[in-house]
């Protein structure tokens, strides 16, 4: 057993202990378990929502992207739209949820449109999108632990142990466990990423600017956007699409519901960008690897950070990096697990058996956690390429839920249930088709200007979704009957 492994184990035990501690003094009703009794102050909500920016992506994806393709993925790591959308959209969502006892994202659609069937559709779309996301986090975990334990732990072993750990504290403490472990996770990641992001450029290149100058000299065009492909137009459209999808994820909205007041959500929107800046250090790590470990290919490019770490530090510190990486995968996974269990019990089981009491639902949600964990483990080891295809579609899928939610926050909701259904289904089908057939705007319209050809296809699908949603709503709206009796008091600008 090496020192790296000991450090990783120590932090794993710490997480389980903290997660279990978190439930002290709380009776675990459904609301407590699923959304922390809507009692989290600004700081906890901050770590829950902002923490979503620090997942395995920060470790593997952002540094790997910068290593592989330079500036385009590097800039895509920052997204100012997240925060502006958060500022205006989350408080009205929170208020409606509070007033109507909404505890899951699918619940929101169910109650807003007064249609359990719509809730079921949203639940299915969400679970199908989010399970691949969970699986990718776990695969990331396997890679991180295998690398930083110098191969003494196999990826499968790491994944199984990790899943058991989060299953224990999620079943026991739900959202409370997630929030407390999220804090320690973020502190660790911050410290480790900032340190390496400063250390590598200084140590290997004698400074930040010398590093970028030598990269620029060695690889021309690496530090600007290319004219086609990952061009500026790709960047702009992908940024907008991602931001619209970001808060539609069920675990993100669960984080939002756990807030004590809308004030803390607005405050968070203002602070989070500063937090996002820290990703730049992860990019520095990726850039520093460009000339130091130049020959990584394919999936190995995501390991740039660990290759750098292992050739620079003692095993115990590699263990610290591994532990933070493992938490970066596990804590968001535990939030996702809580959200999936809530959706399945509240928005699928309860629709099927409407007489279930909240206490029974609370028990059911918690029993579901280990079941979901087993299913996810199964697909992690047996899913193959289809999981990765689903993962690529996850953001585009979630974006399809945006129009129905957005319009429902208007004073007079212009969208009917039928419109919401039609828009989502058409959107999902188009995403599936374009992903599987490899259709992009460039293949559809080869003669169009490059600016249009490089647009993110998800954004184009979203526009079709909006058009379908609105036109079906116009056709199906019965004269004199308005669909928004229940929510006259809400208002986007409120």
């Amino acid at each position: 057993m090496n020192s790296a492994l000991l450090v990783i184990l120590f932090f794993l035990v710490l997480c389980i202990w903290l997660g279990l501690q978190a439930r002290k003094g709380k009776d675990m009703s459904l609301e407590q378990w699923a959304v922390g009794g809507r009692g989290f102050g600004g700081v906890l909500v901050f770590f829950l929502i902002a923490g979503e920016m620090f997942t395995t992506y920060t470790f593997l994806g952002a540094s790997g992207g910068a290593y592989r393709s330079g500036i385009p993925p590097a800039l895509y790591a920052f997204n100012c739209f997240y925060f502006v959308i958060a500022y205006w959209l989350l408080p009205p969502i929170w208020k409606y949820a509070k007033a109507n006892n909404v505890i899951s994202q699918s619940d929101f659609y169910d109650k807003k449109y007064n249609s359990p069937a719509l809730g079921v559709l949203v639940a299915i779309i969400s679970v199908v999108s989010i399970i691949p996301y969970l699986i990718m986090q776990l695969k990331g975990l396997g890679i991180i632990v295998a690398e930083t334990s110098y191969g003494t732990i196999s990826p499968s072993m790491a994944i199984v142990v990790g899943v058991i750990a989060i299953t224990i504290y999620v079943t026991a403490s739900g959202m409370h466990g997630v929030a407390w472990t999220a804090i320690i996770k973020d502190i660790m990641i911050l410290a480790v990423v900032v340190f390496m992001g400063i250390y590598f450029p200084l140590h290997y290149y004698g400074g930040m600017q010398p590093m970028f100058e030598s990269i620029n000299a060695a690889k021309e065009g690496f530090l600007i956007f290319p004219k086609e492909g990952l061009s500026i137009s790709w960047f702009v459209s992908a940024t907008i699409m991602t931001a619209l999808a970001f808060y539609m994820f069920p675990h993100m909205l669960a984080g939002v519901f756990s807030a004590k007041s809308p004030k803390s959500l607005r405050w968070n929107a203002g602070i989070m960008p500063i937090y996002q800046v820290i990703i730049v250090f992860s990019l520095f790590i990726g850039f520093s690897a460009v000339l130091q470990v130049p020959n990584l290919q394919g999936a190995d490019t995501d390991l740039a950070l660990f290759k750098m770490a292992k050739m620079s530090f003692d095993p115990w510190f590699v263990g610290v990096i591994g532990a933070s990486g493992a938490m970066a995968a596990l804590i968001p996974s535990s939030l996702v697990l809580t959200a999936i269990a809530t959706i399945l019990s509240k928005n699928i089981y309860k629709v099927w058996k409407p007489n279930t009491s909240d206490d029974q639902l609370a028990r059911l949600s918690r029993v579901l956690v280990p079941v979901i964990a087993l299913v996810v483990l199964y697909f992690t080891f047996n899913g193959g390429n289809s999981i990765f295809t689903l993962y690529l579609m996850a953001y585009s899928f979630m974006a399809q839920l945006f129009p129905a939610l957005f319009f429902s926050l208007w004073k007079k909701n212009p969208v009917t249930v039928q419109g919401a259904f039609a828009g989502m289904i058409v959107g999902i089908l188009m995403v599936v088709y374009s992903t599987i057939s490899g259709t992009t705007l460039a293949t559809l319209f080869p003669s169009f200007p490059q600016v249009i050809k490089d647009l993110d296809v998800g954004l184009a699908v979203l526009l079709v979704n909006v058009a379908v949603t609105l036109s079906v709503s116009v056709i199906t709206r019965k004269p004199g009957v308005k669909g928004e009796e229940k929510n006259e008091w809400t208002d986007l600008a409120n």
Partner: protein
Amino acid sequence: MKKLAFVTSIIPALGSLVVINRVEPYVLGMPFVLFWAICWVCLTSLFLIITNKIDPANREEE
């Protein structure tokens, strides 16, 4: 005030989409295109804190 708050929040969203696609000059050791993007992330914070201050919604509720 609501409208003004909306405007102050939309400025960074739009600003962040303006890409200055050049390496030089280096600022704080970073290529200009990267520095410019980071700048807008920081400005987003600033603008949203201003939005927070002038948004009447924050005074209505406790």
